[in-house]
């Protein structure tokens, strides 16, 4: 997809995050273009999840801006933020389905809160969303009765309940077997093609990245920011930065004595 012709839907400007005095990242600038699948990658601890949490308004950055259609969600008031939240859907690492509710109740929650759609229509919307994620017939199950992959899919159904413009996925395939992870990838591709939803995905599953990503953003712990940006295959073949190469070629950087074994 040619991103240049599309307008950016989210603009991240000079973003910096800290934990206490520890700088997680700084000077992070990038755009999320409408209709693209942007994958954020990087080794553990580089701040991928922090970046995602800032982008969905869960965490405040140290400085910088996140502009959604011109509105800065970092400095936004709670009511404005709620407006933004109705336009996004989030799938958490642990799926975060509400354990005390059935799958139906999980999905209908935002629909009941934010719309005046009658119950019959809501029911059919729920059936449709569950059908989209291959979970038709599971309306009345409790989350605890579902497997890990099914929970993820139910989570996606809930994230898509309000037909959001941007979907965020935190660690999409963490803890899933390869087959289930591949199914999820297919689901992502299908959804993107059918609905044209913009997606921001945090993952480090290489196979997924090649399959689903239009564009990849790579964060690095040492560099405290973005070290690469581009199409996944181009990055794999053309990147000169050893950190990027080692990630995409799945090799340890050839530092000999870097990684020491400590007892503790």
């Amino acid at each position, binding site marked *: 997809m040619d991103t240049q012709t599309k307008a950016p839907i989210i603009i991240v400007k000079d973003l910096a995050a800290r934990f206490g005095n520890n700088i997680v990242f700084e000077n992070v600038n990038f755009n999320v273009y409408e209709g693209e699948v942007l994958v954020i990658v990087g080794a553990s601890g580089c701040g991928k999840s922090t970046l995602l*949490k800032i982008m*969905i*308004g*869960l965490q405040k950055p140290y400085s910088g801006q996140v502009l959604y259609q011109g509105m800065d969600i970092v400095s936004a008031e709670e009511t404005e933020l*709620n407006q933004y*939240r*109705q336009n*996004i859907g*989030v799938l*958490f*690492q*642990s799926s*975060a*389905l*509400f*354990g005390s509710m059935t799958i139906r109740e999980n999905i209908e*929650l*935002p629909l009941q*809160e*934010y719309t005046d759609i009658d119950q019959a229509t809501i029911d059919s919307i729920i059936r449709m969303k569950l059908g989209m994620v291959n979970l038709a017939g599971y309306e009345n199950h409790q989350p605890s009765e579902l497997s890990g992959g099914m929970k993820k899919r139910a989570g996606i159904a809930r994230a898509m309940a309000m037909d959001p413009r941007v979907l965020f996925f935190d660690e999409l395939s963490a803890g899933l077997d390869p087959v289930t992870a591949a199914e999820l990838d297919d689901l992502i591709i299908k959804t993107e093609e059918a609905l044209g939803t913009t997606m921001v995905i945090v993952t480090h599953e290489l196979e997924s990245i090649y399959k689903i990503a239009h564009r990849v953003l790579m964060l690095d712990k040492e560099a405290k920011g973005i070290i690469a940006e581009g199409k996944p295959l181009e990055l794999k073949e053309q990147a000169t930065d050893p950190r990027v190469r080692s990630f995409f070629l799945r090799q340890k950087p050839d530092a000999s004595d870097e990684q*020491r*074994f*400590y*007892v*503790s």
Partner: protein
Amino acid sequence: MKTQKRKNCPEVYNISFIRKDLNLFVNLSGNFGLQNLMVFRNEINNEIYKQKLESVTIDFSGVCYLDSAAALALVQIEKEAAQQNIQCRLINLNDKSKGIFSVIREDNLINLSSQLERSQDGFMYNLIERRRLPSSTEKTQDSFIFRLVERRGLPNQSGKSYKDFIWQIGQTSGQIAKDFANFVTFIGELLVAFLYIIRHPKSLRGKDVLFYIHRAGVDGLPIVAMIGLLMGLIIAFMSFLQFKMVGANIYVPSLVSFAMIKELGPIMTAILVAGRSGSAFAAEIGTMMVNEEVDALHTMGFEPIRFLAVPKVIATIIVVPILTVYADLFGIVGGLIIGVTSLDLTLKTYVTQSMKTIQVFDVVTSIIKAAVFAGLISAIGCQRGFQVRSGAQDVGKFTTSAVVMAIFMIVLADSIFAIMFYYVK
């Protein structure tokens, strides 16, 4: 693989000592591991410190199994010996043992780097030489050996505990202040949520309120009734033992009803609800925090406090006064059982005596107290739940804290009420 290797290795070890002048030769053979670590370490140490020594040579040629803990213990023996100016040498290590020593070396070397000069020709020296490790001691404090030494109660820096104590006082005071600030903030947020619900009554989750009324109220009734009844029985019985000496049996009903309604009913109920429901609220919200469910609520645009805390607080405030009235009633019934069976009072006298003592004011204050306690219990329970950050341990910690804090606040509020109602009346 491991078991195969151990097949030819006896489960026991053997140590033989040979003394030559001021030199000790220790011959190790057999199996050295976690299971016999304490025994062989003591055995070797005893031999080393029996008489004055200049050097110890530990020969590994007969060792057929060595695990990392045993290797660590031997390194520790070497370290302690070095502190007593005894040179220690480890010789004839096979490849596997060398591998183990190389895995544990890094931390130890930092610990042992100070003895570099002393054991120039020792095994450790060779290792250090080979690894060219900086002689920094920064990592010593949190290294494994250090912790091991501390846990074993071996010599440690002295004078540290005094500083620790003051540090801990500061730390705890800071924690308490922060806790209090957190709680006040939470109460503020809760009030904002309440105001919102008053303005938008539809946003209250009625189903949840009913659910928690059932949980905290209906399910809690049997235990509250039972405790109330037993309290009444006990007070009646104990006071009867005293009153009968002065022939004042007739005042037992007054005492029971007065005590139950003014103090014991509200307090006992509140403590039971704190234990049953306050803890449940904390654990429930805490688990939701761990599972990212609260984050999910946030991103779906739901205010977690309004969504999770408000129904619980409303339900508790509705339910606890009712439970308190039940507790009062059952207390009086408990007293009545003793009164009628062993005090020679008729049912009618008992009831009229009780009625004479109780005033509407007392019942009303009892209910007000109960409602305030309910607010405290549920608010603390929810607030503690929201404080959970990660893991099951946090859930346990904050659940406990919810109950302890709630009971403390109940007693504190009760003392304030005692003084307040005295002046109001």
